[in-house]
């Protein structure tokens, strides 16, 4: 009965899901890994990656293949979000 998940993920939740995938991939994630890990369509993935880059929480690394990593700001944001998620979860609220 509790922890009824909302029907749609909020924008914030999608941002965090993307960032979590990047973190899980040792902070070097390919777009395809993010696409599957965060359960997004290709178009939406590109849109959100651009938004996250604009926010300065992820960056694209230059090289032979396209990789994304969390910036220091991104790591701090994700850690803070996890803390808040635990706090809300302790009361039974889903962020």
């Amino acid at each position, binding site marked *: 009965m509790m922890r009824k998940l909302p029907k749609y993920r909020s924008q914030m939740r999608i941002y965090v899901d993307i960032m979590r995938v990047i973190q899980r991939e040792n902070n070097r994630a390919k777009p395809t890994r993010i696409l599957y890990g965060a359960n997004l369509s290709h178009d939406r993935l590109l849109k959100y990656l651009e938004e996250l880059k604009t926010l300065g929480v992820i960056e694209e690394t230059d090289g032979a293949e396209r990789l994304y990593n969390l910036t220091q700001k991104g790591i701090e944001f994700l850690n803070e979000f996890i803390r*808040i998620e635990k706090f*809300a*979860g302790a009361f039974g609220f889903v962020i």
Partner: protein
Amino acid sequence: MGPRWFVGFDSLMESVAFIIAVAIAYEAFKGYRLTKQRTLLYVHFSFAMLSAGLLIDSLAGFLGILARALKGFVAFTLVGYTIYFLAQVLAYIILVFAYVSQTRTLSTTSVSLSLVPLFGFVVLQTAPVPTIRLLGPLIEYHPVSEIVLLFLVFYITVQTGLNYSASREANAFLVFLGFLLIALSHLAFVLIPFSAMLFVIGHVLQLLGFVSLLSMLLRVTRTK
């Protein structure tokens, strides 16, 4: 209301609970600023309201002691209790609203909740207490007011208990334990007419409830 030796300790315990409530309200507000989740704003307002009530009641308690020492009669404790009671009602209604808006159902708890007024009726029929007295805009302690609070906190305890049974997480357990102890403290306050010692027990349980919430907060803030 309580034993003479306990005078002042209740205000001291409420001062500690006030600091804990402020810390929880602050953490919830930080969470709201980051996530813009309304439920966190409700938690913030609820604990901010509780902390304001606790502060006023504890200050009123200390001022009451001072007034008694100076041989002047000032109804500080009465003012304190009235404000604290109203603050608690509002705080717990906000939390109840947060749970109702998230779960969108009252079905599983409505049956158990209906037992609380029944219990209140039994207490009022058997307890040696006069009818409720309203002194102008002020409310004097009476089991009815504590039953109202018990009713609200009991609902929150059930919700946090359900959350713990679903998640089995230590933090969820500490929140459940916190509200359970606070609910038990109100139960003790309801039963004060039977024994003055229940005033002491109620305050100790309330403090332990807030300490349990503080333990959760410390565990969460130490998360890396």
